[in-house]
């Protein structure tokens, strides 16, 4: 009996410890949702007068809506630029010999390794000279650098599953390289391309550090406005905006998770 009890107790202890850590990962961020439903100025876990007051204030504010609009605009731009360039790079990498491919791959994913603050300072300096600070174009370019490596990795791993013989067959049967890509290659990597496009959107939509530097006063995105609000004004609107940001990410990323589970 004791021999049976002990493993059971150990298993229970493990489940409690492991479960607590998983809860520590998920629960804190979720507390922002009940907070956002409060009409009061002080924090309430369960709001005394629940309602959508803060959401109404957010969506009625011209200033916040401008920032939201700009964020979406930049993220859509990043989606196009990063996905296009990343897919091109992934297709090109496949045509290289192993040695040069490894080297180039390392160079292409470097933006993920360099600390954001270093890239932020660097790109701020260069953009200031080029007149790109405080412009949507500047934000799209900088965010695309950060989103690009994800596209290369996602599309690259999808390309591993594409049999080159199919493409060679298509080429030898007289289809041009573009037609071969459109008819043979792309259908097989479609999910990865669309998935990385969504991911690129999310990377841009949530970016703060680089944006803090290069958005100037004219092109503040939603996260930068939130950053300012955290420092300079105490407002109960922030939990509502935080919820909007989180829900946006969840909406964008859910298809990705579904695809992952099917794969």
């Amino acid at each position, binding site marked *: 009996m004791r021999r049976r009890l*002990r493993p059971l107790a*150990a298993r229970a202890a*493990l*489940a409690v*410890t*492991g479960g607590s*850590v*998983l*809860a*520590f*990962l*998920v629960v*804190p*961020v979720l*507390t*922002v949702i009940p*907070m956002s439903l409060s009409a009061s100025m*002080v*924090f309430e876990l369960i709001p005394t007068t629940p309602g959508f007051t803060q959401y109404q204030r957010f969506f009625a504010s011209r200033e916040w809506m401008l920032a939201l609009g700009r964020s979406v605009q930049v993220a859509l731009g990043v989606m196009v630029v990063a996905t296009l*360039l*990343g897919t*091109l*790079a992934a*297709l*090109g990498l496949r*045509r290289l010999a192993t040695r040069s491919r490894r080297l*180039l791959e390392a160079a292409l994913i*470097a*933006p993920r*390794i*360099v*600390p*954001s*603050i*270093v*890239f932020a*300072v*660097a790109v701020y*300096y*260069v953009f200031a000279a080029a007149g790109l600070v405080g412009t949507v174009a500047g934000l799209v*370019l900088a965010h*695309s*650098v950060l989103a*690009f490596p994800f596209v290369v990795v996602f599309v690259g791993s999808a390309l591993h599953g594409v049999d080159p013989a199919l493409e060679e067959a298509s080429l030898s049967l007289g289809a041009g*390289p573009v037609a071969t890509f459109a008819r043979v290659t792309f259908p097989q990597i479609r999910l990865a391309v669309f998935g990385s496009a969504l991911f690129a959107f999310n990377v841009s939509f*949530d970016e*703060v*550090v680089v944006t803090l*530097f290069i958005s100037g006063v004219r092109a503040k995105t939603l*996260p930068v406005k*939130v*950053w300012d609000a955290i420092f300079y004004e105490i407002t109960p609107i922030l939990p509502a905006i*935080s919820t909007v*940001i*989180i829900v946006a*990410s*969840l909406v964008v990323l859910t298809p990705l*998770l579904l695809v*992952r*589970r099917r794969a």
Partner: protein
Amino acid sequence: MRRATLARVVLLGPPLAFLLLVFALPLVRVVWGSVFAPGFTLEFYERMWRTPVYGRVFWITLKISLLTTIGAALLGYPAAYFLASVKPRTRQVLLLCVIVPFFLSVLVRNYVWMVLLQRTGLVNRLLLDWGVVGAPLDLMYNELGVLIAMVNMLLPYMIFPVLSALLAIPPELRHASASLGAHPAKTFWRVTLPLSAPGVAAGGLLVFIVSLGFFITPALLGGPKQMMVSNLIEFSVRQVLNWPFAFALANTLLLGTLLLYAIYVRTLEGRMPRAAGLP
């Protein structure tokens, strides 16, 4: 030009040109600007090392990163062990707890910690209500607050490598150890832990590397004594406009990060077993 070469140029040309202009060139400018102002000088590096205030920022950065790594290992290992012990289907669902927050806004997650950890926040409220403490604790604007939030944000970097190391251990080894009469605790110490150690090392190094460049958490949840290198860089650029000094700091952070990352790739990445079913 041969057709194959043409294809490579067409495919790789635009992305490389883009990265060169928007990524590599600005970084080269940082390296250049830290030593030429306008003539060659090491003045800014010298100032960085000679001034005790700045030296302390580096020490704090290393200390916070190290403590975050230890915290992530202490919490991440049992979580990974638990995930490895459940059925694959359950694991897929539970893994969402690790994956989903990882992709949510870092700013929002830091902000939530600010709300939860403040003196009138939820954590203090619960501690008071349960009678654990008599007066609210200072949980933020200090090292504790920074550590709680950083461990929370970096745990996935630890959990994934440890989990894949644990899943790669053949179950027969544990069965053999048990059937030879080893107590489960002994099996853990002599079989499971040593075999999952590379996962802990890989996760630890990753957590440490990412910690070094943390900016948002120390800015929001730390006090003046928790200023990390990233925060000093921002301060130098945005408050005092001392570009060459910021470049020297940024360059030092960059070199440290790249060096550790090279060590990671050389020693650990290749040896990490990749278990099926992980992202």
